[in-house]
């Protein structure tokens, strides 16, 4: 592919959104563009957005699937509020995404799909390409489908297969426009279509046709470059939250020297964790696709009883079903990791949209006094470390731990600075193999004075045969007990042992140390909150940011932190669940800022809101 003879312009950041019908391969196109961009060394953040329907009616608004990628020559925190470039594969994709497009943005449209029928499907009376409605944008009409089919006339593939390669034409064009290295995409195509060499050739040809079109057409006069970002030295890979979480669980197995047992029932957006872990049997990972959510956690608990690192992965509706078994795990005091990849609820809600509305359920959604540990990752790559932390707490303190991911971090991606295995925490906890009293008896509820954990004596251990169960247990012996004083003691002890889990203090980011307003977040809002705080500081408005990973127990210094500011603002993708907790626990007048649209906060939304608080109190 010859060097272009076109003007090259330098940009510091670009946000591109690929949008098309859910069968158009937009997720794949976005993934490939992201991978090329990562190879170049830009910082990246991505956000897919797709319908729950596998194939919604073609060409309709509900069927639009999109993938947004933000890349820059500096460190970025979010997938970008609004795209600079929209690739619209059909009228529905244009119409669905236009409201978020700022004036001046580039729009690349596939003109072949702007037929009367397709326009009518989405309520366009006339083609927006022909009237004046897109005058605020730089529209680049490209006959993507017909040019792809034309380029593949001699490729020996069916017309249908040729048409399907149009996403590679689009990728080739965009890769040319933004000067992306394309070798990894060619290699990817070889892997993907390994069993059908004619499709490898066709897709490569479509990609090249798109690239060449950019180079030769007069429709595009400028080519762009975004220089590599200054990032910490090391080896990186681009990773989604669900992938990172899966690898974190594998790593937890290696570092604890325990076989991982995953019990799971397919549910969006958590199923990818089941898919990923099922590939890693060589690490001794067993995955079981159970008959339902309850069986999934039951099997994981059974495996934990037998000495495995028991894990179950699900989303909100699944956690609701697992509640009774979680309470059993609390009574049995066995380690268990419960991953909740949150989605918009209640009920089926919007399975492919994000929300943080399961916090109350994670903290309080069980019968009886049933405390456990709750943690949340703040970004896609952080899911790796959060999974290890969840496993650490579970095995060290013999307790169920809920890990609250959400659709935004689960499906979003970012570059991940790969850790070296030796740096990962050692999670090894020995099983109890001997009697634990001076007179040679074994008491299954005699606690470790440091961790308050009871012995993990697994079946198969000679001499330690014992029975456990959901009925209230006598302190130390674990025998069934209805004694009022014992129950009072055990309820309080179960709470104390969660409260006593060692978690790090929360850090406050306040570079000038002059902020009077603290913005406190948890989980996936870290990116947009961080971006908003940076923007405010750049404009000379001081603001402090603190972000919670541990939600139960809360960091010991949190009360002191929140008391140190005039105002504490808590943005959440729910109706104020953390805010309510902070107000109740620390008796401060925290301000809740809430969004429950199924979409993540934009940095601009938060910047505007926080600016108002900083200026007007």
């Amino acid at each position, binding site marked *: 592919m010859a060097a272009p003879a076109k003007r090259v312009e330098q940009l510091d950041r670009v946000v591109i959104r690929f949008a098309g019908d859910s069968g158009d391969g937009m997720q794949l196109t976005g993934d490939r563009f992201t991978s090329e961009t990562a190879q170049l060394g830009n910082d990246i953040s991505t956000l897919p957005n797709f319908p729950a329907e596998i194939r919604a009616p073609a060409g309709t608004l509900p069927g639009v699937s999109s993938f947004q990628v933000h890349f820059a020559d500096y460190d970025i925190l979010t997938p970008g509020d609004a795209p600079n470039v929209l690739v619209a594969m059909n009228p529905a994709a244009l119409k669905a995404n236009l409201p978020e497009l700022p004036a001046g943005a580039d729009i690349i449209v596939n003109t072949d799909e702007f037929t009367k029928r397709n326009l009518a499907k989405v309520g366009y009376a006339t083609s927006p390409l022909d009237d004046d409605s897109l005058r605020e944008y730089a529209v680049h009409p490209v006959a993507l489908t017909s040019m792809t089919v034309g380029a593949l006339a001699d490729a020996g593939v069916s017309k249908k297969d040729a048409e399907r390669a149009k996403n590679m034409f689009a990728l080739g064009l965009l890769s040319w426009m933004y000067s992306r290295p394309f070798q990894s995409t060619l290699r990817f195509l070889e892997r993907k279509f390994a069993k059908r060499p004619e499709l490898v050739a066709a897709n490569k040809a479509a990609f090249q046709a798109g690239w060449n079109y950019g180079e030769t057409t007069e429709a595009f006069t400028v080519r762009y470059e975004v220089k590599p970002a200054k990032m910490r030295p090391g080896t990186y890979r681009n990773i989604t939250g669900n992938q990172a979480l899966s690898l974190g669980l594998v*790593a937890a197995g290696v570092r604890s020297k325990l076989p991982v047992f995953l019990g799971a029932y397919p549910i969006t957006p958590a199923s990818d964790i089941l898919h990923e872990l099922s590939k*890693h049997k060589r690490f001794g990972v067993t995955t079981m696709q159970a008959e339902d959510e309850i069986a999934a956690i039951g099997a*994981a608990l059974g495996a934990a009883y037998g000495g495995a690192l028991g894990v179950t992965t699900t989303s909100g509706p699944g956690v609701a079903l697992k509640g009774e078994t979680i309470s*059993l795990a609390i009574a049995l005091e066995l380690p268990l990791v419960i991953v909740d990849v949150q989605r918009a609820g209640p009920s089926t809600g919007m399975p492919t949209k994000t929300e943080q509305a399961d916090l109350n359920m994670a903290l309080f959604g069980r019968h009886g006094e049933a405390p456990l540990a709750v943690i949340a990752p703040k970004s896609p790559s952080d899911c790796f470390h959060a999974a290890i932390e969840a496993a650490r707490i579970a095995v060290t303190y013999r307790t169920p731990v809920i890990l609250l991911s959400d659709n935004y971090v689960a499906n979003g991606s970012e570059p991940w600075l790969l850790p070296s*295995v030796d740096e990962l925490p050692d999670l090894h906890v020995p099983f109890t193999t001997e009697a634990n009293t001076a007179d040679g008896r074994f008491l299954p509820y005699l606690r470790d004075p440091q961790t308050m954990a009871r012995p993990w004596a697994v079946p198969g251990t000679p001499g330690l045969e014992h*029975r456990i169960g959901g009925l209230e247990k006598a302190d130390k012996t674990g025998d069934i007990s209805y004694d009022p004083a014992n129950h009072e003691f055990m309820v309080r002890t179960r709470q104390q042992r969660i409260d006593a889990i060692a978690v790090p203090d929360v850090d406050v980011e306040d570079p000038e140390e002059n902020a009077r307003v603290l913005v406190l977040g948890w989980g996936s809002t870290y990116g947009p909150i961080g971006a908003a705080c940076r923007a405010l500081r750049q404009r000379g408005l001081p603001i402090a940011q603190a972000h919670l990973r541990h939600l139960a127990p809360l960091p010991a210094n949190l009360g002191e932190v929140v008391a140190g500011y005039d105002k504490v603002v808590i943005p959440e993708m729910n109706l104020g669940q953390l805010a309510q907790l902070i107000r109740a626990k620390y008796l401060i007048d925290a301000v809740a800022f809430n969004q429950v649209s199924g979409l993540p906060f934009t940095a601009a939304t938060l910047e505007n809101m926080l600016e108002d608080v900083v200026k007007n109190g």
Partner: protein
Amino acid sequence: MANPVAVTLTAKDFKSDQEVRWCPGCGDYSILAAMQRFMPELGIPRHNIVFVSGIGCSSRFPYYMNTYGMHSIHGRAPAIATGLSASRPDLSVWVVTGDGDALSIGGNHLIHALRRNVNLKILLFNNRIYGLTKGQYSPTSEIGKITKSTPAGSADSPFNPLSLALGAEATFVARTIDSDAKHLQSVLRAAATHEGSAFVEIYQNCNIFNDGAFELIKDPATRDEHLIRLEQGQPITFGTDGRYSVVHPEGSFGLKVQQGGTPMVHDATVDDPAYAFALSRLSGSDLTTTPIGVFRNVQRPSYDEIVRKQVHDAKAQATGTPEEMLSDLLNAGDTWTIL
């Protein structure tokens, strides 16, 4: 299941230090005693045996066995035991459940454990009533049953537990009776040696809320006219002087009882489940012709075995220490390095 090793234990070794708290006269006592007497025969050390139960009177069982045990939650014992058994091939895992626990709230887990052929021994104590919640009808109660919750009689037809298990592709299906210790132990013996799921229905008398439910086949005065003892390789006959035969009428899908005729010769190893199913249909709520013994005993790879083989094979192909493998995994795919 674990390999037998040389240990000499007695029934006493299997009695835990917990006071047994079933109602006096409950059929569960005789099942517990039979189990404690039978267990030493297995030749498995106590620490390699686990009893997992759900909720209900029968589910107190693990507390009284001096082995490992878990009294879990209502209906979920097969699911919990599946995770334990699949990850611990060295253990002999037993599930103790009741008609409400296994067939009502836990029905889904039961059929899926049987379908998977998990290496579990599932003992269903069927007393045809809810005992622990004080006397509501159960999914095995006869239609029209008058109880606290159905003063005008229950409106729903009962399950035939054996037909259900066979429909769920169970590889070992048997029935026995609480009061017949010898028969009970013979069935436990057969179940214990079966690789895969063994499902045993035990007719159990609840003398408080459903007393005498199985009297027709227990009372020596009536028993022999109604109870059909299945024995491998033997003609299926019963009644005084064996006057009744179980026959397969030509052109019929099922089996029937008649006087005289050529009786079926019992073979639990017949691959086609239709035979065992036909046997299971002989008994209804009224118990007038009730087979006991092993209905079906066939071999099929257990879920545990298949799952462990997949893990084993993957591990066998792996090279390097777990840490090295993990490092390779983290560094897989498209990576880039910043200096």
